[in-house]
């Protein structure tokens, strides 16, 4: 299990690095991480959770898998709790958004829309890392890693 750092540190690091901010580092190195407790129940009332986003225009996209997990949407955070217990913050392609406090509309890099809710089981395509944010996650959110998502699959199991 990798060390848990605070989101503010992550964002500050990316900002200081300016336009060249990225996460180039050995796979075994501790990676920037954030976090709000993942213990929030999927049934608790939800507010306007911040949808962390990045801009996929003029880019190609990685093809690694996040692994399957359960989406948890709380008042501030949108987290994916993987089946192995790891908690990640998905960073979605714009213009993914939450129109209500319950439904997250993910727009993948092909323009396909998928509506998901807290408790849904999903798996993401993309890669682990910290992108150039359009909207960063709420600083109160905690997780072990961020995942730059370019697509989503809703799982039936």
């Amino acid at each position, binding site marked *: 299990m990798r060390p848990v750092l605070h989101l503010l540190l992550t964002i500050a690091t990316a900002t200081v690095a300016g336009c060249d901010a990225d996460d180039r580092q050995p796979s075994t190195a501790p990676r920037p991480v954030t976090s709000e407790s993942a213990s929030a129940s999927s049934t608790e009332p939800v507010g306007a959770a911040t949808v962390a986003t990045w801009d996929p225009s003029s880019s190609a996209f990685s093809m*690694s898998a996040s692994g399957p997990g359960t989406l948890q949407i709380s008042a501030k955070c949108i987290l994916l709790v993987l089946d192995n217990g790891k908690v990640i913050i998905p960073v979605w392609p714009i213009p993914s958004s939450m129109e209500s406090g319950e439904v997250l509309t993910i727009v993948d890099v092909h323009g396909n829309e998928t509506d998901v809710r807290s408790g849904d089981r999903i798996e993401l395509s993309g890669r682990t890392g910290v992108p150039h944010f359009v909207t960063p996650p709420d600083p109160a959110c905690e997780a072990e890693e961020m995942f730059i998502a370019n697509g989503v699959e809703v799982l039936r199991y």
Partner: protein
Amino acid sequence: MDRAALIEPSDLELIVKTGNGPFVQSAPSRGGNWLLDDGVRECTSGFSVVDNGGVRGVMTAGHCAGLNRFEEPGVAPYGMTFKDQSWGEGGDVEWHTTTHDELAEFYSSEFVWRDVTGIRSTNAMVNNSVCRYGRRTNVRTCNHVVQAVFVNVPVDGIPVGDLARTTNNSGLKGDSGGPWFFSTVAWGVFSAFDGDGNSYFTTAREAEKQVAVSIRKK
């Protein structure tokens, strides 16, 4: 009469030998297998490699993060250790050692593996057809033609160079790092796709240079 019934327990002799030598693993590592991060199937292995010191391992995509287990069909996932990577202008490649022997072979489809007998020169790729295999799609696809080499393109916003761009995107999540090949010749390892329906792979020769290894051949 059943032949098994003709064998009496007294006919069998069991000899147990003990020793201090290494435990010999029978399942070798190959390209085209699942690579795991804390139990999660994240990427696909590309080809077996060896460094200047004779250390063997497997190559995959450099953007695959935290890989620590290798999954060869039929055996429990076993350990792998990160060695080196290039993720950026020099391409998208990394390599790991595994706790099993790494053979000069790769899966070209779910159950079939091939020997690696050659490495395709980067400059001899354009306008030629190439195939790929990834564990997630789990089929070999050959509807790709290389359009350009030494391509630099942003991947997830990060400039990545030394890529070959091909027609068609047949990949799914988890295919990253998987082998690109034609017949038994290694061409590269899977990197990315774009919104125009193209695929990108780090060419074999540039991948070798970036992490100072050689793809193993028979």
